[in-house]
C-alpha cells in the first residue's frame, strides 16, 4: 500500500501531505524522518534525480523538483519501483501545472491544481492514474482522450 505522499520546501516545511493507514501518532515521526532524509541527501541534487531508501519492510523514494522536495512511502506491492512510478507522475504533473520546475511561490500559486492532480494520482492507498495528459484533463472535468 501507498503509505504517504509528502511535499515540503527545501527547509523542511510541509507544503502538503497525505498519509494512508499511518496512525496519527506516528505521522510526526514520519514527517521528521523524511524531512531529515531530504536535508541529508537532496541538497545539491539534480532536478528529479531519484533517491531511494528502505527501512524494514517500508520503502521511501524521494526527489526534488525546483525548490520543492517530494517523498513517497510505500510497502508490499508499492516497492521501490512502483514508488518510482508514482513519484515520476507526481513530478511530471507538478512540472506541467507550473510549466517549469517550481519555486516555492509558484508551487503555492498553483496549489489548488496540484491538490487536484494528487487527488487524481493517488486515492488513499492506491495509485489511480499514471498519464500526465489524462490527469490534466481529469482535473478540469474533461473526459480523457479515448484509449
Amino acid at each position, binding site marked *: 500500500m501507498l503509505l504517504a505522499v509528502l511535499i515540503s520546501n527545501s527547509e523542511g516545511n510541509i*507544503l502538503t501531505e497525505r498519509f494512508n493507514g499511518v496512525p496519527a501518532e506516528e505521522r510526526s515521526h514520519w514527517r521528521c524522518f523524511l524531512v531529515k532524509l531530504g536535508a541529508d541527501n537532496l541538497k545539491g541534487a539534480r532536478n528529479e534525480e531519484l533517491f531511494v531508501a528502505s527501512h524494514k519492510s517500508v520503502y521511501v523514494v524521494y526527489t526534488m523538483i525546483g525548490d520543492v522536495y517530494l517523498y513517497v512511502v510505500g510497502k508490499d506491492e508499492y516497492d521501490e519501483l512502483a514508488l518510482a512510478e508514482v513519484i515520476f507522475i507526481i513530478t511530471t504533473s507538478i512540472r506541467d501545472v507550473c510549466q517549469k520546475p517550481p519555486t516555492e511561490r509558484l508551487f503555492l500559486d498553483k496549489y489548488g491544481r496540484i491538490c487536484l492532480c494528487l487527488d487524481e494520482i493517488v*486515492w488513499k492507498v492506491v495509485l489511480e*492514474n499514471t498519464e500526465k495528459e489524462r490527469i490534466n484533463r481529469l482535473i478540469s472535468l474533461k473526459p*480523457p482522450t479515448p484509449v
Partner: protein
Amino acid sequence: MAQPLVKKDDDRDDEAEYSPFLGIEKGAVLQEARVFNDPQLDPRRCSQVITKLLYLLNQGDSFTKVEATEVFFSVTKLFQSKDLGLRRMVYLIIKELSPSADEVIIVTSSLMKDMNSKTDMYRANAIRVLCRITDGTLLTQIERYLKQAIVDKNPVVASAALVSGIHLLQTNPEIVKRWSNEVQEAVQSRAALVQFHALALLQQIRQNDRLAVSKLVTSLTRGTVRSPLAQCLLIRYTSQVIRESPNTHTGDRPFYDFLESCLRHKAEMVIFEAARAITELSGVTSRELTPAITVLQLFLSSSKPVLRFAAVRTLNKVAMTHPMAVTNCNIDMESLISDQNRSIATLAITTLLKTGNESSVDRLMKQITNFMSDIADEFKIVVVEAIRSLCLKFPLKYRSLMNFLSNILREEGGFEYKKAIVDSIVILIRDIPEAKESGLLHLCEFIEDCEFTYLSTQILHFLGIEGPKTTDPSKYIRYIYNRVHLENATVRAAAVSTLAKFGAMVDALKPRVFVLLRRCIFDSDDEVRDRATLYLNTLGGDGEVVETNKDAKTFLFGALDIPLVNLETSLKNYEPSEAPFDIDSVPKEVKSQPLAEKKAPGKKPTGLGAPAAGPPSTVDAYERLLSSIPEFSDFGKLFKSSAPVELTEAETEYAVNVVKHIFDRHVVFQYNCTNTIPEQLLENVSVIVDASEADDFTEVASKPLRSLPYDTPGQTFMAFEKPEGITAVGKFSNVLRFIVKEVDPTTGEVEEDGVEDEYQLEDLEVVAADYMMKVGVANFRNAWESMGDDFERVDEYGLGPRESLAEAVSAVINLLGMQPCEGTEVVATNSRSHTCLLSGVFLGNVRVLARLQFGIDGSRGVAMKLAVRSEDEAVSDAIHEIVSCG
C-alpha cells in the same frame, strides 16, 4: 537607466519570497467561506477559498466539528454552479472534510444526481466521493449503479468504481463480493488502467479461494495484459499460486516459463518483478536462478538509482541462501561501494561479505575501512553484523576482522552501534578460542573510555566469566579495578562482582583480590559496599591462597534460573513479615509471548544481551484465585497453568476459553465464560465434562458460576484427580449448561422465569506438554555438562516422511513443550541435518535438558536421535515415552 531594472529585480525577489498564503488564518478563511452561500456564485472566488481551506487542512490545522460541518453545508450549495473547475474542487473538498464533519450524508442526493448524470466526469467523481462517505445501508442503495459503472465504456468511470470497490471491500466485503462477474468482465478491458484496477480487485475478492485465483492466473498468463502495473500484479499472484501448489518434485515447475518470459518484457518494472519472483521460489535451483541473476546483474550498472537499489537488495537476499549464484556479480557490486546512495553501497558491501571467499577478505576490509567513515550508524550496524558472520565463516581470518572491529570501536558512534560491535566481539570470543585473549583485551581497552554504563557492566560481567580461564588472568585486574575508581556506582558495583569472580576462580590471585575488595567497603554507594562485604564473606579463606568452595562458586557463577519478571512480581507481592522471602516460591515458567512478538523475525544471535524478559506473570494471580476456592485448597502447590485455550469460535453468543492448572495429583480446568448477548442473563452456569476418553482422570469437584450477566466475564471450574507422577493424557468433551433469563436491555429488568439450555463447546485435551514448564538456560553446554550423564537416556526414532526438517523440529518441540535454547528452534533452509537444544522443568520440579539431532533423507524421511539428561531417571524415561507415543 539601471534604476528601473534593479527595481524590477527587487519586485521579482519579493514575489518569489512571499507565499500567497502568507498570514493565512483559519477564522478569516471560514468567514470568507460565506461566499459559498451567495445567491450569485463567483466560481473563481469560490475556488480560491476552497484552495485556502485545502491548504489549511494540509498544514494540519484542525477544524472543530461545528466548523467542519458548517463549511461542509456551505460547500454543498456549490452544486448549483455549472462551472467545471469549481465542481472538481467541490468533489475534492468534500472528501477532505468528510472525516471531520457531521451529517455528511446530506450531500448524498446531490452526488446521486451526479452519479446518474450524462456527463461521464461527473459520474466518475461522484462515485469516488460517494464511496468515501458511504455506509452499508447507502451502499446497498447505490450498488446497482456501481455495478453498471464497473463495466462502463468510459474507462475513468470504470476505474473510479473499481478503485472504490477496493476500498469498500475492507468495510463491506459481502456486498463487493457480489460484483465479481462485472469485475471479471472489466479484467478483459482494453483500457490498461481498468485492467490493472480490476485485476487487483478480483484477486482480493477471490483471495480465499485458491482454485479461483489459480484459474485467474492461468487464463491471464495465456492472454494479454496491457499495462506493466497489471503485469506486475499478475507476477505476484502467480508466485502465490506457485507457493500454494503442492510440490511435485518432478518435471518443470508450473508457471516458471511465464516468469522466465517476463524477464524479456520491455518494462523494467516487470523484468525486476519476475526476477525477484524467481529468486523467491522455494527450493529454487541454480538453473532456474541463472536468468534472473543475469538481469539483476544488468540492473546493477543502471543509471537509475532505484533500479540499482532494487537489484542489489534482491541479490543481497539471494546471497543468504545461494551465495555461489551471486558471485558472478561481485565485480559489479564492488563498483557500487562508491555509490552516492549509501543504502546501495551498504547493501553492496554486505552482499560482498556474504559471497566473498577467504582470499578476498583482506581486500574487502580495506575498502570497507574507507567506507565506514562516511555512513550513518544504522548502516554501520548492518556492516558490523555482516562482518561477524564472515568471521564465523572464515575463523582463520579472525585476526584482521577482530582488528577491524576494535578499530571501529574506538571511533565515534552511538549506543546501538557500539553495542553491535561489542556483541560481535563477544560472539567471536565464544566461538573462536584463538580470538579470546585479543578480544578480551580489546574489550578492556574499550571500557577504559566507555560512555555507556550498560555496555561497561555487561563487559565486566563477561570478563568475570571468561577472564579467569585465560593463561594470564592477572593482566585484566588493572582494567577492572580502574572502574572502581573512575566510574559511576552501577559500573563500580559490576566491577566488584567481577573482581570476586577472579578471586574465586584463580586461587593465586585471591589475596590481592581481597585487598582490593576491602578497599571497596569504604565506597560511597550502598550497593558497592554491600557487594564487597558479601563477596569477602562468601569467598572465605580470609585472603589466603586456598581453593574456593563449591557453594561459593555456584553462588557466583550459577545462572539465575528464574525469569526476572516472575521474581519482580513475587517480590512486589511479598508482604513484610517474620517469614523471610522464599526464592523457591517464585514460579519458573516463561510465559508465552504475545502474538505480535511471536511474529517478529527470527532471533539474531545474542551477544551480551540478557535474555528477553517476558510479559508480567499471571501465575501468581491464578495461584491466589485457586487457593481462595475451598474445594481446591488441599491440592498442594500449583505447578503450571496453561495459556487459555479457546473452546468457542470468535464472535459466537457465548465466548468460553479454558486454562489448565496442573497440580501433582490434580488437574483443574478453569472455564472463562463471557455472555455476549445484551438481552440475556445466564444463571447456574457450569460445564458438563465427559471424560470417557481420559481414563486416568476421575472427577472430584466442580464449582458452578451463579450468574453471568452480559459482557462481564465469570469463571466456572472442574477438578480431576490423576495418579501422582504420571503424565496422564486424555480428551475431554465439554457442554456449557445454564439457565437463561430474558433481560430488557433498556431498563435492565430481568424476567423471573428462565429456561434451561445447553451450548456445545469444543473438546479439550490434556497432553504431555502440559506437565512441562518452559524454563530456558543461559548456556546450554554448561548446563548439560553440570547435569552429568547419570540419568542420561539416548535413543533413536524414525519420524517418517515429513513436509520439511523445520516442520519435524517444530512438531517435536511442541510435543515436549520445552524451551528451545540458543535459537536452535530455527532450521536453516535446505539443510539436511539440525541439532536442537531444549530445556524445561518437569512435573515435580525436575530439571530436564534434551539434545535432539535430526536428519532428513532424499525421500523426506526424518530420523531423530534424542539424548535426555535430567535430575531423575524416571523423568528421562518419561520424556522418551512421550516421544515414542507422540
